[in-house]
């Protein structure tokens, strides 16, 4: 029994009908979190969560998040709760303020039961690059396949049935890729739709608040809570917030979906292709117009290096506050320069240092034009290409990943050799700030894979409407890989 494997709406109903109390839910989630073997947690907020559950204001009972245990990625500032971004340099850092996302969730009555593991500071998509080591994929009982990252702990926690909502962040595909490997619904809305205040920046121009749910409905309902202008984030949008659940079940007949031919062609897994094409057929039967359209292969090939240059350049600057002076780790030294050098040498992993070197190198005066500025121009071309497709279509739809979760032993940080354009293409939505959602498509050998749907900026309602049609056609929702099964 228990409730934590259910969707938000089902748990909400049980709460309203007084079948269960927030405290019972919190205790259940904490027990699951403690028993978990997937290395999802940086910190389990046992005391804090129980206290909050006891004091919960039941005038908010109608809110879908009231009394719901949730987890938050460890790069969201949480007042009085350690926040390390899974980096040694922020070991023991306890923020004095909460991020806007956390404030809005708690205001709605949600109870944070834990801070989840991640790839250090959001960099690296393996789920193995945090200071606590590899976070596992609950669907794989052999613990040899990745969950993916960087929001690995959140992806794993929702997939293993610990909580029905897990907050992540998405700079390249950090929510949408692990959602594909973990059979959850992963959303990142339009850039500026949700305040980033208090989210540790990796690359501000690409960073998005994102989250995992178990259904499209839950995803839309949570956007209602999180979306909206925040004075503390100057880049947050003034656009009015819609009720994103309103158009979910409207008919999709006549809507137009573009499938990028080159991306599908780059996928070799016949099972994934067959499932995807089958789903296209199901959508056609609902009256959706589906066209295969082309985008210049060279641009698609450029997405990954462009992403690496832009994000690494911004990352060097965004993490320059970690100097050992004000908070976090401090290694001794006689001068500021010595403290800085010793702290950063010890505090960052090799992967982070490599990214900083790439970023710093591309910003140097002598390389700027050739690397950073060129990457910016390339970013513009990539975004223009995808936007011109979206001019004619409601959404772009492709398999989220070309394979199921890869082996943990595979090397993802090798910047040499060939790479598939289907591997990291989802970063186009970060470059353009476009709303993008991954949702389950099927399973292969017990491991899930998802599809990814991306729409025009601020067209979330349309995105959810189409995503709902996909979910209805696959019937895949509320999927949980329980530990003891």
């Amino acid at each position, binding site marked *: 029994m228990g409730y934590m494997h259910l969707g938000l709406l089902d748990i909400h109903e049980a709460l309203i009908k007084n079948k269960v109390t927030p405290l019972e839910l919190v205790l259940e989630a904490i027990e699951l979190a403690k028993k978990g073997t997937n290395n999802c947690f940086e910190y389990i907020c046992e005391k804090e969560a129980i206290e909050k559950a006891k004091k919960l204001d039941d005038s908010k009972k109608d809110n879908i998040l009231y009394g719901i245990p949730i987890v938050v990625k460890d*790069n*969201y*500032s949480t007042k009085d709760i350690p*926040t390390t*971004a899974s980096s040694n340099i*922020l070991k023991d*850092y306890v*923020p*004095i*303020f909460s*991020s806007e996302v956390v404030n809005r969730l708690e205001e709605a009555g949600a109870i944070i039961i834990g801070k989840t593991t991640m790839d250090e500071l959001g960099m690296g998509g393996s789920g193995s690059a945090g200071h606590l080591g590899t976070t596992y994929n609950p669907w794989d009982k052999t613990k040899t396949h990745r969950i993916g990252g960087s929001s690995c702990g959140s992806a794993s926690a929702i997939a293993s049935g610990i909580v029905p909502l897990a907050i992540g962040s998405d700079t390249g595909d950090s929510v949408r890729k692990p959602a594909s490997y973990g059979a959850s619904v992963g959303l990142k809305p339009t850039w*500026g739709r949700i305040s*980033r*205040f*208090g*989210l*540790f*920046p990796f*690359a*501000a*121009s690409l960073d998005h608040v994102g989250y995992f749910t178990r259904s499209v409905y839950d995803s839309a309902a949570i956007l209602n809570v999180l979306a909206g202008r925040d*004075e*503390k*984030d*100057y*880049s947050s949008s003034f656009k009015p917030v819609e009720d994103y659940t309103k158009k979910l079940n409207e008919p999709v007949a006549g809507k137009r979906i573009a499938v990028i031919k080159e991306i599908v062609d780059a996928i070799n897994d016949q099972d994934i292709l067959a499932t995807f094409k089958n789903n296209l057929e199901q959508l056609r039967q609902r009256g959706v117009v589906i066209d295969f359209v082309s985008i210049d292969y060279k641009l698609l090939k450029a997405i990954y290096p462009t992403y690496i240059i832009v994000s690494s*350049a*911004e990352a*060097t*600057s965004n*993490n*320059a*506050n*970690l*100097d050992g*002076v*004000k*908070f976090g780790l401090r290694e001794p030294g006689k001068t*500021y*320069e010595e403290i*800085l050098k010793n702290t950063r040498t010890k505090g960052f992993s090799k992967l982070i240092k490599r990214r900083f070197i790439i970023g*710093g190198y591309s*910003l*140097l*005066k002598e390389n700027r034009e050739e690397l*950073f500025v060129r990457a910016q121009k390339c970013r513009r071309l990539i975004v223009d290409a995808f936007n011109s497709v979206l001019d004619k279509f409601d959404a772009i739809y492709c398999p989220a990943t070309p394979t199921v979760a890869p082996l943990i032993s595979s090397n993802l940080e090798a910047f040499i050799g060939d790479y598939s354009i289907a591997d990291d293409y989802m970063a186009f939505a970060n470059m353009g700030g476009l709303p993008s959602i991954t949702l389950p498509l099927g399973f292969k050998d017990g491991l899930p894979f998802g599809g990814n749907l991306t729409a025009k900026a601020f067209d979330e309602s349309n995105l959810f409407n189409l995503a709902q049609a996909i979910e209805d056609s696959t019937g895949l929702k509320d999927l949980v890989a329980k530990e003891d099964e």
Partner: protein
Amino acid sequence: MEFEAVIGLEIHIELKTKSKMFSSAPVTYGLEPNTQIELYDLGFPGVMPSVNKQAVISAIRVCHALNMKIDDTLMFDRKNYFYSDLSKGYQITQQFRPIGREGHLTIKTFEGEKDIGIERLHLEEDACKQLHYSDYTLIDYNRSGIPLIEIVSKPEIRSGEEAAKYVEKIRSIVTFLDVSNGKMEEGSLRCDTNVSVREKGSSDFGIKVEIKNVNGLTNIQRAIDYEIRRQTEILQKGEIVKEETRRYDENKKITVLMRAKNDPVDYKYFTDANIAPIKLSKEFIQEAISTSPELAEVKKIRYLSMGLNEYDSDLLISDVDLSKYFDEAVRSGANPKLLANWINVNVRASLKRLNISINEFPITPIHLAELIKIIEKGKISNVQARDLFMKMLEKKISPNKILEESDSTQISDMSTIQKLILETISENEKSVIDYKNGNERVVGFIVGQVLKKSAGKANPALTSKLVLEELKRR
């Protein structure tokens, strides 16, 4: 061989806005360290900048005063470097799109008027203040994030005098526009100087030396002139000037080496994505300009039109607070010419004597205006006016009140005074005869005796009037 100096100035000016450039922390000087701070100023992970509108308005006003082109899109960039006074590891500035470009300003030197080109004006945030001790350093974040404008001149300045005049003019502009207190001694106006020397007539630049943070106009002039001499001597010997950063030793009156510049820092600039480009509408820019306080030159024209002479006008606009004091007294109805004279003579002398600024002056502009009105009506003599002025300084109350008070202790009752006069004359019968014989000094003598009898309480003006009448009657 003849040489000439090429000088460029970078001036940093702290804006006196209510809050900081990108955070809501208040800008208040002289308070306990680390009390005027917000999350942003400490650079905690996840903090984000919000642009201070008043700082933008201030920058637009200064741009306009410097005849600059004002960019209609506001963008900010990051200047990346590590230093203990920099909380985020980068400073937000405007590298690629400064708010102002291509301006100029006219200075007056002994050789006449000269136009100095201005390259750019940009908005940025200040760093922390550091207090270095022998084995530790204290950091005060109160200064972290205070809005700054940086004004970069073109290399068109040729002497220490020109540089000092240029800085003086900029200081006048920012103080009259009320965007900064412009105090060099408090660090709210800081000046970095680039000096190089080249063969006269050459279009190439010599190797430049930077002189950091010279304090005060006199020192700027001296430091530059010293540096020009130093570099010229090196060149005359056929040697090469080293590229370096120097500072000015005020006591020895020389520049001294701070550090060699072998490897200039690469600041790895890029645009800050947290601040989406802000469109500045024509109306917004126009509003900022049209509501801008009066510049010194405009004030001067107004003063001249009031009938003030060149000298008095120049003295008044030499200090924005002095001119504000003058303006307020004029608004209270003082005759401008008479007022200007009083301010420039008596007020300034008192300020000097008391060693205070006009803002600390005990006499309010309204009270001074009252005094001017009393003088203008001829109620009191010059000597009495100065006496009254001194009493105002001391008592800090209105001159009319002082007069009233002294009136109440004075004997103004005619019959009482008349009685004293008759008494005095009967005691000095001879003086009546002297007066009749044409000795006018008798009047003063009798008045003096009467005042003495009254223990100084008899109203002198009234007494002398009555004495005169009595003598004539005899």
